[in-house]
């Protein structure tokens, strides 16, 4: 019979062996192994809605699409300029920047070996614009002559759209007007090609739910092809041997991890499970600044945080009220204490390239108080109790609380915070069923238009009820202006109107806070964070 003591002692021994095994085996971390294998481990926020560049519309999807598909032009790995390179050898404009000729590479291949042709691009643009597909980002192609009419069903004839195949490797694009910045637009994933032969093999041109992007069917033309996809676990891509520049692709593969919780993501980074995080909470920014500042990146991003005003409601229909509310916001405090690294915004468009947004003179607090008095609310008396609508996100709540305090202290008005879950929040905004709502917008391309076109009446992003004919007129004039500096001038004048009428309360120009492992080399700060992956190098032993 085994004595109790023996049982107990053997149990203790077993436990200690287990513990020693657990602690002593200093196995390499996932990052170490991936670095050795040349695979980048990337936090990518959440599960993508799909891999069809004509169907999806989000930033996290674009991160994956950038590895899989290549448009006529790709981003430069080091600068925010659109240098030639991509599926086209060159994309050249005529004198008015209205007609562009794209010369495709003769050695361009899909990942099944079939050549990439001008017909593929023409087919793709037709697919995206076909009304039956119901592509929500079709308006990215409205730069093409006739595209809007075709997409909205005013004509069924695609030959009225400015896309013409000259020969297998030459594509002619005729735009709605002079577009000197067209190369910038071409970088967006809506302008990439999808494989005509594969799309048509699995369905029709405009079929929703066409299974061509399923892992077993998908064919791509980018530096990488899909290796594996497990829902809410990972998407992994590997080298595409048919890529025209395959011999110069450094990285062997990328693993995108849909990590929804930023705290979990930071823990995984610190535990050696990720090369790069998608984001970083303010607390982690502070911690990393103290513990490991080298791994923290704080970079400018083309995004703006603001609060929409419902200009169809009293008293926000009065521009004096909106100006007063905007003037007393302490933007510096919000940018530093809540967002860590944002820049106080005085205009909608963050400075980009040669475009410097208008910088209006600041309104003093006394002036703001007198504006409010002029509007009929001296010292905030009689001001209705407005609600700030926010989606249940922590930074939005803190931001709204800050505004609440600033308005109470400086203007003597009380506002409430109304917290709705994301979907209800969006619906309320779209139905103009709100007073003031927290919001943000990240540009699709590097041109002020991506921040200014959204405020035209009827645009899906306006949602403020604001409508200024003078503003629209200036924007329309800019569409016909070929000279870049005159064009910027028109846009600046339009933006000045927008800022002056204050349909939104601007807060800050966004920055990206994220963590990067020291082994990652060649990941440069780009304003759109659209770094091409193929040039990234992983250096072991760092």
């Amino acid at each position, binding site marked *: 019979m085994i004595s109790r003591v023996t049982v107990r002692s053997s149990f203790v021994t077993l436990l200690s062996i287990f513990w020693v*095994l*657990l*602690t002593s*085996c*200093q*196995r390499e*971390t*996932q990052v170490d192994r991936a670095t050795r294998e040349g695979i980048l481990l990337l936090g990518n926020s959440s*599960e993508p*809605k*799909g891999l*069809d560049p004509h*169907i999806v*519309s989000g930033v996290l999807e674009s991160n994956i699409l950038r590895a899989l598909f290549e448009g006529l032009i790709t981003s430069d790995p080091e600068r925010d300029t659109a240098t030639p390179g991509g599926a086209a050898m060159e994309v050249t404009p005529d004198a008015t920047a209205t007609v562009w000729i794209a010369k495709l590479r003769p050695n361009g291949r899909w990942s099944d070996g079939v050549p990439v042709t001008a017909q593929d691009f023409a087919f793709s643009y037709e697919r995206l614009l076909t*009304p*039956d*597909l*119901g*592509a*929500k980002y*079709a*308006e990215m192609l409205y730069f093409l002559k006739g595209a809007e009419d075709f*997409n*909205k*069903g005013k004509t069924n004839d695609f030959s009225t759209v400015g896309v013409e195949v000259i020969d297998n490797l030459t594509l002619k694009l005729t735009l709605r007007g002079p577009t000197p910045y067209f190369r910038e637009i071409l970088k967006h994933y809506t302008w990439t090609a999808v494989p005509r032969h594969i799309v048509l093999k699995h369905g029709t041109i405009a079929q*929703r*739910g*066409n*299974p061509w*992007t*399923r892992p077993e069917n998908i064919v791509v033309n980018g530096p990488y092809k899909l290796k594996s996809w*497990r*829902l*809410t*676990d990972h998407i992994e891509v590997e080298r595409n041997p048919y890529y025209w520049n395959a011999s110069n692709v450094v990285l062997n593969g990328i693993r995108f*991890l849909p*990590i*929804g*919780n930023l*705290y*979990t993501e930071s*823990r*995984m980074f*610190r*535990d050696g*499970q990720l090369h790069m995080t998608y984001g970083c909470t303010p607390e982690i920014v502070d911690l990393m600044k103290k513990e490991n500042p080298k791994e923290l990146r704080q970079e400018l991003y083309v995004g703006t945080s603001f609060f929409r005003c419902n200009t169809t409601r009293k008293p926000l229909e009065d521009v004096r009220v909106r100006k007063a509310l905007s003037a007393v916001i302490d933007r510096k405090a919000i940018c530093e204490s809540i967002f860590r690294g944002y820049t106080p915004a005085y205009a909608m468009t963050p400075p980009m390239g040669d475009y410097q947004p208008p910088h209006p003179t600041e309104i003093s607090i006394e002036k703001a108080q007198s504006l409010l008095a002029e509007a009929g609310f001296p010292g905030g008396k009689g001001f209705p109790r407005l609600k700030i609508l926010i989606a249940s996100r922590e930074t939005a709540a803190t931001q709204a609380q800050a505004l609440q305090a600033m308005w109470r202290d400086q203007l003597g008005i009380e506002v409430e915070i109304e917290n709705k*879950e*994301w*979907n*209800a929040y*969006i*619906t309320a905004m*779209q139905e103009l069923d709100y007073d003031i709502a927290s*919001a943000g917008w990240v540009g699709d391309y590097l041109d002020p238009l991506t921040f200014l076109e*959204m405020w035209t009446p009827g645009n*899906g*992003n306006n*949602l403020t009820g604001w409508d200024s004919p003078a503003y629209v007129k200036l924007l329309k004039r800019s569409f016909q202006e070929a000279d870049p500096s005159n064009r910027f001038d028109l846009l600046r004048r339009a933006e000045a109107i927008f800022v002056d009428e204050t349909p939104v309360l601007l807060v800050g120009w966004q920055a990206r806070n994220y963590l990067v492992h020291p082994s990652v080399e060649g990941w440069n700060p780009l304003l759109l964070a659209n770094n091409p992956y193929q040039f990234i190098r992983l250096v072991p032993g760092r």
Partner: protein
Amino acid sequence: MIRLILSRIGQGVITLFVLITLTFFLVRAMPGSPYAEEKAIPEHALKRMKEYTGLDQPIPVQYFRYLKNLIVHQDLGDLIKKDGVKVSEVISQSFPVSLSLGLLSISIALMIGIPAGVIAAVKKNTCIDYLCLTCAMIGICLPSFVIGPLLAVAVGLSLKSINVAGWSSPSDWILPAFTLGLINAAYLARLARGGMLDVLSQDYIRTAKAKGAPSTRIVIRHALRGGLIPAVAFIGPAFAGMISGSFVIETIFQVPGMGQHFVNAATDREFFLIQGLVLFYGFLIVGANLLADLAQIALNPRLRKA
């Protein structure tokens, strides 16, 4: 016995039918829409998208179409926001993960909870009892979003062989399983203690003692069977809950299980996914309850005549 099983199955089918009907209409009564996006989708695109998913039809038509698809084709439908992904695919990819995590957690819960509860009952009003009770109370009161990150930081960050999150190797199962298991262990301990105390004061236990039976034998042979009935009744639904995933645990430990779909489907208004998951979960609950009933009958002879 067979009659009982058959009647329970019949009740289960009715429950599931009521459940799916209620869910169907409730999700459509929620404010918001599956197509709500920061940038409003253009009217013509929206119309086309709704036609594709059938959401352009009147709700009764949608309902009968859904039932027909479900019963005739055993099809739970497609995701609204992810083109071409089937609800059944989401469940078949995530359920095995939740099942393995749930099984491990329930084993941990049983191994810790039942002995703790039994020991506490046997050593009633001693230090051991108080210790067990306090631990159980802490386990019940501390939510998983506190225990989870604490374990992740304390164990995951300090031990190289255990990752703080992820689901790529078996060692990744340990932390989420413990977090989920500990909470349920606490409930089990309290239930087991209560049940055991009840039984230990019964006449037949006193008789056994009077006949001079050794105390371990009394506890294991005579008391345990009856004392564990409350715990067993709890295990059924708790087990179904555990194997269908936990949003919090999955978020903290980046587990590709089913729990996150419950929450995300609701916030995304993924109607068909919500319906599919609720139906699947209802099926698990009905099944688990049936098993729990059978286990109780096995433990309690008095129920066999009922």
